[in-house]
Each structure stands twice: as C-alpha cells, then as structure tokens.
C-alpha cells in the first residue's frame, strides 16, 4: 500500500526500479531455496563452466576438482544469502546467480593457489599458469590451440581471468565486471588490451590480419 502511494507521488514517478528480475536461473534458484535437494539442477548446469574456469586458472585436474567441489558446496550452504540483482542493462540472458557462483569460484581458486604455494612438493612459482592443453592433448591436438592458450596463460591475473570468463565461460562484460568487482568499462578495456597482447604474442599483426601466427 505504501509503495503504491509512493508511486503516485510526483517524486517517485521518475524512480524507475533499477533492479529487474532478469535472472534466467531464478526458477531453479527459488526451487533450491525451498528444497536444497533441487540444487542439483543448478549444479549440473554450471559444473563444466566452473570446472573449466578452475582448470584454466590452476592447470591441474585435482586442484580444479577441489576448487569446483568447494565452490558448489559453498554455494549450496549459502544459497539463502543470495539475492537476485540483475539490471535491465544486463540483457535477457543476465544471471546474477552465475555471477555470484563465479565470485565464489574465484575465491576458491585463489584459496587453492594459496594452498598449493604452501605445498613445496609441487613447484608452481611461475607467474604463468600450467597449460591444461598439454594434459588434454588427446582432445585438443592442434598446435594453434595450444599456442593460443599459452598466450592467454601468459597474461597477468585479472586479464587472464577476464579472457577465460569471456571466451570459455562466455559471460557478458557486465557479468565479468560483477565477478571481478570492476566496472564494465574497466573490464572492456582489460579484455581489449588482453586481445592486443595475445595478438602480439601470437605474431598476428594488423597487416597479417586473419592469418594464423606461428608463435607458440
């Protein structure tokens, strides 16, 4: 009642609600909030994406599995704290649940990195993450793909994360901004610069255009 009265007042007329219910995961999230057993549908939907993100970041199957498991358990136990906050500008496919999920995944990956650093048996002191395509050579044999990943792997932290979220997990810029805690403009610039770095690394010049570089 109070809201209706406020809407009639002149001051509220221009107050277009900034939060719109656009989360395409909303039915699944609401079902899981009512009955935690229904979380399984969200788990199946996002398992490969979360795992891929963890794998690209950590470069190790076991570490990626640990981070993935921790992400989903944390998401399930904290689901009641999740609030949908998609904006109209986020587009039709916007999903704040998935932003929230990747925020958790990012934290878990960071935690996994810290734990790995404390384990001296596995030297991962390099700034460049391991190359998962070496392990997955049966699935991805092309040298070009390997070269592309290596070039992405050589990018500094946030640029690399933004590239993986954009190209592998296919998140929108707005979603990546939510995951990384940056503005959309900052993420756009981050990705644009990353693409130019990768192009240089792969030997793709403005003149060569679409020609595939030979650097690896």
């Amino acid at each position, binding site marked *: 009642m109070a809201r209706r009265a406020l809407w009639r007042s002149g001051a509220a007329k221009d107050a277009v609600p900034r939060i719109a219910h656009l989360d395409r995961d909303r039915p699944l999230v609401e079902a899981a909030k009512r009955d935690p057993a229904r979380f399984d549908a969200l*788990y199946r939907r996002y398992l490969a994406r979360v*795992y891929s993100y963890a794998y690209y970041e950590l470069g190790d199957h076991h570490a990626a599995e640990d981070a993935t498991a921790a992400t989903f358990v944390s998401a399930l136990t904290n689901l009641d704290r999740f609030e949908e906050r998609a904006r109209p500008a986020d587009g039709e496919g916007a999903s704040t649940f998935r932003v929230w999920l990747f925020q958790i995944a990012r934290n878990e990956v960071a935690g996994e990195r810290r734990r790995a650093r404390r384990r001296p048996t596995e030297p991962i002191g390099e700034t460049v993450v391991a190359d998962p395509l070496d392990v*997955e050579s049966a699935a991805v044999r092309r040298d070009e*793909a390997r070269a592309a990943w290596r070039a992405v792997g050589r990018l500094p932290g946030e640029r690399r994360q933004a590239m993986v979220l*954009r190209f592998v997990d296919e998140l929108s810029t707005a979603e990546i901004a939510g995951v990384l805690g940056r503005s959309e403009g900052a993420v*756009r610039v981050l990705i644009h610069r990353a693409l130019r770095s990768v*192009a240089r690394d792969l030997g*793709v010049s403005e003149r*060569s255009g679409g020609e595939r570089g030979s650097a690896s």
Partner: protein
Amino acid sequence: MSLIRRDSGEVEALITDRYLDSLLAIQPTADRDRGPLGAELRADASIGAAVRAVSRRLATDLPRFHPSFRFEERLALRLAEVAASMRLPIAAGGEGQAMAIRELHPALPDPLRVAGDDEDDRDARPLLIGGAVAASALSLAGAWLAWRRRTSPMTRAIRAAHQLRLPGGGA
C-alpha cells in the same frame, strides 16, 4: 595519457566488446569461423584486423573442459548429503505442525495400565512436533510420555502383580 587518447581507447574497447558479443552468440563454436555470419564478422572492419583475428581464434580454439563422470557423480552425492543435512533443521521445527499424540495410535490401549494408576489429564494435550517424520514423532512421543508418567512400566507391573497376590487386593 591524454583525455582524447584515453577516450579513443575506451571507444575501441566498446566496439571490440560489441564484436565479441556477436561472435560468441554464434553457435555452435565450429561455425564461428565459417558460415554467412562468421564471414560477415571476419570482414567487419570496425575493429583492427589483429584483434578481430585473435578474437575469432580464441572463440574457436579455447575448449571448455568437463570433469570426469566419476567426479561429477561423487560431488552430486556429496551435495545431496549436504542438502539432506540442511533439511533436518526444517524437519525438527522450522515448519511446525500440531500433532495430537493420542491420535497417532488411538486403537492401542496401554497394556500396563492399572486401575488407580493416576494419569494426568494434561496427557491429552497436543504436542508440537515440527514437521518431523513419523518415526521421529513416535520417538519424541514415547520420550514425552515416559517423562510424563510418574512411575515406570516396570514399577507398575510389579505393583499390579503385588495387588493380585495380596488377599483383598489391598496393600
């Protein structure tokens, strides 16, 4: 960095972002480098040729990995266990329902009931058991009844046997 240069960088980044939106919207991944839309994007001159080429290459070449089926099912099982443990507090009182104890088993008389073994009328009051499963309800009901009774069933049985032995049934 000058303001104009910074602005032009942001504009370039914005155009690249729109290009990526179009590129990644093409399904399946293999068609990104072929097909009519792929060809259109390949010829898009709004962004630099190098960025355009690298974008197409990354969109096509970077795979998405799936964990092993074994891991997937193991984690699914673990999540189901976590979900079950989250449902327990709800069952224990989160969604309370009034259940009358006497209505649980109205046909069962108390086999050890002895005349004169006074029972409080308050026993007939309903007990609030929040959404518990029948087994839990029965356990709680049993515990509650045992607590309510002043004497144990064994005591009452001994007392009944004693009454039968004594002439006149008196103590």
